[in-house]
């Protein structure tokens, strides 16, 4: 399973401050810590919401420069504004890029879709349209179908798509965990060449012992067919469980990756 490290996100106050103060050292360290914990991609989100679009663009450009200078891992450029994504990906010199994210909303497909095609990037595609997060599996799949059709029209392959089934806080509605898991299963069944990704930590919002709940849901999602996860890679137990899940779902032939990680001392129980 691919791990996309989520920690460089301006919705975290410390990160927002570091971006405002151009604190390169803090952010570079945050990137390095995630890479040394095993992250495959580093998500970068510079959007604090304060100030103009110009500021958002300048912040995102600067942040991409800082992170790619600090680590040798590909980036996921995270924004819902096409202008920010376009500017940030201009700064990005790597050849593997994830754009995070699009939805089935026509305006978002029209503005961000061409950027994905042009950069031959991968893209996180949220299983929702203009009416918010659908409560039912079928409606989420409908959104995926609309995205698939539109992106195919731009020459984007299924392999470039990471469908996000969407994770809602289980504290608010305990039926929604299964909806997410079933959506993953169905996406994998319908589009064998596309991949799935989800932001993990939303599941445990509003509940105690969140990490425990995150880890348990991660394993269930792995069984349902999850290919990538956006979360805090500094959670070493969850990182170990990802290796375990790869073994148990037949994605780690002969357990070699698991044993390599064990010999490096990276597996904790």
């Amino acid at each position, binding site marked *: 399973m691919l791990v996309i490290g989520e920690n460089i996100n301006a*919705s975290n106050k410390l990160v927002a401050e570091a971006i405002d103060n151009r604190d390169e050292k803090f952010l570079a360290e945050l990137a390095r810590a995630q890479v040394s914990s095993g992250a495959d991609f580093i998500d970068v989100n510079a959007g604090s*919401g304060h100030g103009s679009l110009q500021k958002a663009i300048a912040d995102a450009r600067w942040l991409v420069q800082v992170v790619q200078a600090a680590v040798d891992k590909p980036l996921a450029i995270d924004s*819902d504004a096409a202008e920010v994504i376009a500017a940030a990906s201009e700064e990005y010199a790597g050849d593997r890029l994830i754009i995070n994210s699009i939805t089935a909303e026509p305006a978002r497909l029209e503005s961000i879709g061409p950027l994905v095609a042009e950069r031959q990037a991968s893209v996180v595609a949220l299983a929702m349209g203009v*009416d*918010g997060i659908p409560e039912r599996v079928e409606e989420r799949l409908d959104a995926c179908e609309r995205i698939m059709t539109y992106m195919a029209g731009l020459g984007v392959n299924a392999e470039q798509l990471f469908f996000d089934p969407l994770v*809602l806080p289980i504290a*608010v509605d305990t039926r929604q965990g299964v909806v997410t898991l079933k959506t993953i299963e169905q996406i994998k069944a319908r589009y064998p060449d596309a991949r799935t990704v989800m932001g993990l930590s939303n599941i445990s919002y509003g509940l105690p012992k969140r990490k425990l709940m995150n880890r348990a849901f991660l394993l269930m999602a792995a069984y349902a067919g999850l290919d990538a996860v956006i979360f805090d890679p500094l959670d070493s137990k969850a990182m170990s469980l990802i290796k375990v899940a790869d073994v148990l779902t037949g994605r780690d032939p002969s357990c070699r990756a698991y044993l390599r990680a064990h010999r490096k001392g990276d597996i904790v129980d």
Partner: protein
Amino acid sequence: MSKDTIAAIKENVIQGRKTQEDVGIDDTLAGTPGVMELMEQALEDNISPQSIITEGLTAGMEVVGEKFSSKEYFIPDMLASAEAVGAAMDVLKPVLEKAKVETKGRFAIATVKGDIHDIGKNIVAILLKGAGYEVHDLGIDVPAEKIVEFVREEKPGYLGLSALLTTTMTEMGVVIGALKESSLRNSVKVLIGGAAVSDEFAREIGADAYCADAFSAVRALDSYQKAS
């Protein structure tokens, strides 16, 4: 007897026990009548709806609010209590209408344009309904014009605006600007909430209050109500 029933309603709200079948936060009241059974009893005994609301339902919800703020209670605990209160209010509604008792005030709530998050908004709506306000939920992704129109036509005393995204919170300022342009700003208290916003942001856009969680929305409205 009536005092006992009201006290029991309060305790069962704190326990989040809507009916006899609910176990509750812990199992100390398990098997005893829940809020709905007690409501039936209270109405049979001709206890005034006002006492049921203030000394039973609202008093119970206040304790729940304290426990939520101190992190003893979690979201599902709060929702269970709010659901019990909401169900009780549905039972009381015809009684209140018949007795021509007015609600504590009218509250409209919306997630602003461009934002489709509704969980926080819904929790605020449930709690305020439970606290005795008449709640009008305008939905998600609501354009400023529609909000202004509602304020003009329906004249709510309070307006709640929700946004989860840093990209949509600025829309709250747009709504306040539109209210000013229509000379409606002084007719309504505007409260804002959502993950992206803050006290500072509320001041920046000229909102009346920032509410960190649903209970602070209840407290804010209650304080306005007392002052009026």
